[in-house]
């Protein structure tokens, strides 16, 4: 059947277009987040040599794990053209339920591994359900993700405040001692949260780039109609991105709870914006259709690094921390976007 279509073939000289001729401009577009991270790190060293200390680097990476893991989930949601504002409140809510559950299980199972495992299981289940609710209401209810997740954000935030009676929920001390290594422990010199972050990133990378699910996310985010006409179950895939986001939030919560052993209405405030910022700094398009996992990882580390560097210096007035953060975020994104004008059509 191939004969006719090919019979008047002219020279197919550029069948393998190379990106080489695009030169430096395209490099910055791809490597922008990484360049920004390196520049920021150099700045950190200049400001205070303690920045490169092993402890400091370890602290920083460990801290970035929460936002980083959540942001990896957000990369999928945003790539598929959605948005999840509820992640911060969801984390607080899951943390609250985990603590209450584990505290109440102490009587039955004692302060042992079983109790902690139950807590972890409950966290994952809750994350999955919360994501499913966001997804199903968005897709089947045909309501903008912004509104749905703004709503669930308020719901989870007030639920955790209610559970804590307006105060703070604190994990039983004995359970805490068993659970503590999940945040403070390390393996091969690298802390557990960093390992979790790493594995989530690797799995996220494979999911996004090497599975149908990931490819479908790109297609849906670019053009839902085309996805539908490509025999893709659009609603199903979109709901799955929210569920994946929920699981990521649950994982982040699992490593967050042992850090301070508490949850309150103030837990995870503004995490949603930090996660979205990390995703965008990493080169994912907020309007969907284009996403990069490693960029998100770099974005999350960068956000934490800014705070860390500001804590390492007293050269800048504390009152101006927000200004510095804002400028760095905008410059980091500008670095990637500016080149688009030259290379774009």
């Amino acid at each position, binding site marked *: 059947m191939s004969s006719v279509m090919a019979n008047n073939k002219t020279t197919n000289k550029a069948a393998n277009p190379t990106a080489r001729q695009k030169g430096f401009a395209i490099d910055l577009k791809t490597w922008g987040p990484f360049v920004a991270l390196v520049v920021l790190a150099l700045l950190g060293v200049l400001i205070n040599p303690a920045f490169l200390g092993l402890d*400091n680097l370890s*602290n920083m990476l460990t*801290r970035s794990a929460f936002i980083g893991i959540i942001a990896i989930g957000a990369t999928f949601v945003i790539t598929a053209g959605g948005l999840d504002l509820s992640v911060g409140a969801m984390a607080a809510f899951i943390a609250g339920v985990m603590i209450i559950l584990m505290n109440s299980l102490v009587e039955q199972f004692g302060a042992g591994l079983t109790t902690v495992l139950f807590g972890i299981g409950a966290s994952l289940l809750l994350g999955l359900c919360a994501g499913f609710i966001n997804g199903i209401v968005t897709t089947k209810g045909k309501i903008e993700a912004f509104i749905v997740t703004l709503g669930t954000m308020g719901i989870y935030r007030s639920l955790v405040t209610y559970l*804590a009676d*307006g105060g*703070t929920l604190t994990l039983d001390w004995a359970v805490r001692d068993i659970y503590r290594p999940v945040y403070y422990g390390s393996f091969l010199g690298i802390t557990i949260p960093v390992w979790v972050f790493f594995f989530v990133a690797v799995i996220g990378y494979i999911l996004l780039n090497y599975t149908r699910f990931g490819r479908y996310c790109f297609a849906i985010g670019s053009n839902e109609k085309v996805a539908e006409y490509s025999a893709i179950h659009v609603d199903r895939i979109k709901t799955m991105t929210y569920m994946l986001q929920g699981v990521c939030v649950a994982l982040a919560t699992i490593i967050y709870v042992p*850090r301070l052993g508490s949850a309150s209405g*103030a837990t995870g405030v503004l995490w949603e914006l930090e996660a979205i910022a990390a995703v965008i700094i990493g080169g994912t398009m907020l309007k969907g259709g284009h996403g990069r996992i490693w960029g998100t990882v770099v974005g999350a580390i960068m956000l934490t690094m800014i*705070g860390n560097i500001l*804590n390492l210096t007293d050269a800048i007035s504390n009152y101006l921390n927000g200004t510095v953060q804002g400028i760095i975020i905008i410059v980091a994104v500008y670095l990637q976007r500016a080149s688009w004008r030259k290379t774009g059509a």
Partner: protein
Amino acid sequence: MPTIKTAVATFATTAALSTAIGFSGAAVAQEVTIGVSIPAATHGWTGGVNYHAEEAKKRLEALYPDIEITISTAGTAGEQANDLEDLVSLRNIDALVVLPFESGPLTDPVRRVKDSGVFVTVVDRGLTEEGIEDLYVAGNNHELGRVSGEYIRERLNGEGDIVVLRGIPTVIDDERVQGFQEAIDGSEVNILDMQHANWNRDDGFEVMQDYLSRFDNIDAVWAQDDDIALGVIEAVRQADREDELFIVGGAGMKDIIKRVMDGDELVPVDVLYPPAMIATAMDLTVQHFVSNGPVVGEYILGSPLITQENAEQYYFPDSPF
């Protein structure tokens, strides 16, 4: 109420006025509605305020059947201004107990409440204009800073390196830091750095982690707030530097007071800034209506140092804070 015991009250009574009117009856027979407007429980201390307000409402309503108390909580200053309007127009209140979200923006809304003939009690954060409120009940932020500073100065024998974690940039935070600096002024106590930890555990943890990697020797930490202090404790534990320093928080959270009671070396003392002041204010407001004379003036609650010896009287195991 233990807090009343510790109140250093400058009581400007206007008893003369009441006798002049010659109004010597028993408790008012008619019903009195008191509106209480407080910030929502967004962090530990305001959580405590909510708890104590609810407790006081239960207690006072049981005690005085003619008194009805309505509590409303607001997430922002604007929301609180709306709440005040609603309390006047919908609830028809006779008295208002308000813990303003922020002093500036709420001064005018409170004045309008006052103008409609309502008895006004302002708690904790003074209005920017004088003479609006009938009754003012507050903690002393300046003193909290001073007491903390004096303790640290004394404990270090006037010499040492310390770090400070500040709250959310507000007047409250400024007053505390000012009092603290005045107290250590002239000594060899050296502040290595001050950073904002926003009265938040996570921020306290992260800021302290960075202090610990930046400074090899820290003799004391002034965390200013018990939520921050809890984050600081975890960071110090992680770095295994518990033996090198001690931490001074503030407010009187039950977890911290428990540690003080138990003689924790890391947290030897706490400085009181009680969320129960809302209950004090409600008590006094009710007194205004049920006692013979009007209750007006200023009640400034002190910020005593809580030590292992006196910790028990500040310990409320049932409070969320």
